[in-house]
């Protein structure tokens, strides 16, 4: 009974939060609601006894991803409403609606047809993190390593793009200007 109560509570809050994210005109509301929704999703993982994934959901999505969004939002005035200009609202509605519908059908179809089964089921006596580790380092080793290399490439590219003038210190530059102006 408690699982059912928890599930419906979490799902209701998640849906409301993401609804606010999509419909709100204020960027700050949207961001806070998105973060809250992400945290609520981790509740489903805890309900499914996937503690490790639940905690990873909290750390990755709220700790890292959302904080980066927030950092990007520092460039806007978050207290004002965002003015959106949608050229063809019907087309946007149709495309996003169709995508959502296709996703729902794709995910629900195997459940309705009872054709869903775990390829690598949990074994008794193995804890959550170990089970994830075993699958990650045996069956999915190659995708895992490829993802790691891609992240490395992205990081180096980021450093190269951002680091054009890194050998000049802005702080020292400003101080130099001050001393020059003082000398004049």
């Amino acid at each position, binding site marked *: 009974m408690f699982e059912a109560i928890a599930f419906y509570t979490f799902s209701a809050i998640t849906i409301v939060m993401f609804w606010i994210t999509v419909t709100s005109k204020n960027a700050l509301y949207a961001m806070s609601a998105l973060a809250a929704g992400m945290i609520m999703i981790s509740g489903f993982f805890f309900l499914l006894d996937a*503690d490790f994934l639940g905690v990873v959901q*909290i750390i990755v999505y709220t700790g*890292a991803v*959302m*904080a980066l969004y927030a950092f990007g939002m520092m460039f806007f005035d978050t207290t004002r409403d965002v003015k959106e200009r949608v050229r063809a609202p019907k087309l946007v509605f149709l495309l996003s609606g169709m995508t959502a519908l296709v996703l729902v059908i794709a995910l629900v179809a195997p459940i309705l047809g009872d054709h869903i089964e775990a390829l690598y089921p949990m074994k008794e006596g193995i804890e959550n993190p170990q089970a994830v580790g075993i699958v990650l380092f045996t069956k999915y080793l190659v995708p895992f390593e490829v993802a790691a290399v891609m992240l490395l490439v992205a990081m180096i590219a980021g450093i190269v793009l951002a680091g054009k003038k890194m050998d000049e210190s802005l702080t020292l530059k400003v101080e130099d200007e001050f001393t020059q102006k003082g000398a004049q």
Partner: protein
Amino acid sequence: MTTTGFIIATIIKILVVLGLFSALAGFGTYLERKVLAFMQRRLGPMHVGPYGVLQVLADGIKLFTKEDIIPQNAVKPIFMIAPIIGAATAFIALAAVPILPEFEIFGVKVHPIIADINVGVLFVLGVMASGLFAPLLAGMASSNKWGLLGAARTAIQLLSYEVVTGLSILAPLMMVGSLSLIDINNYQSGGFTDWIVWSQPVAFVLFLIAGFAETNRTPFDLLEHEAEIVSGYATEYSGMRWGMFFIGEYANMITLGFLASLIFLGGFNDWGFIPGGLAIVLKVSFLFFFFLWTRAAWPHVRPDQLMWLCWKVLMPIAVLNVVVTGIVLMM
């Protein structure tokens, strides 16, 4: 245990933890002022009650009765929610911390931990990390330049030091082979020489340094650096909402003290003739005192020095530590 018994026990534990730790967080402010005063050869609060002990109560009455001001241009709901996030995440993090060893009271065996999940360390660190939303949203919602600067500093400081915290505890976790705080504690049950701090001194130092940054304590308290950005994210706050940020901060300090003593300093195992329950209280108190001691001894750092320290010094050392630990464990 029956379901009803379990629910009642959990609710009692939650109430005890909430009450005890919010009281301790309040009392922490008194201790901080007293310790700082003695280190600076002053007396500190002396007038309210004997040695100023009741100062906490007076401050509490002041905070509760103060007008709750919300600036006109602020984003109201977010501005009001932000301090609650700060206090709530600090207390939620305590849910997975085993506070004392098991004990019996009125013939009932009590596990002093609210939720014994097998990824305890990650849960505590993750929830503490999501506490960064409190200063972030507060700063962005209050439509104030200093607030915005404080929020920007929150994002860079807490995110960067999260990396160091994670990497530094990775090495002890590799030795123990479990993410459960109780397993980590039991790994060190052999006494003083079994403490992980002796085999992982580098990780311990890194964890403490990153802890100072994550709880926004003095050498790294750039979020509300009063000499540069007035009061940072808390500039527009007053009364109880302002107080909640600081209840959260002190609760986080206590949580971090528990984490450091459980992972590195032998946790709640018996320490010589000292029983385990007392031992962990002593360790946490010492770490709390250490936070205050550092505040009295060190000046602030600049933001660029902070980032330099994190990415060019601490993170490479932490990665090296993990690699060396891995090699030693393989041999």
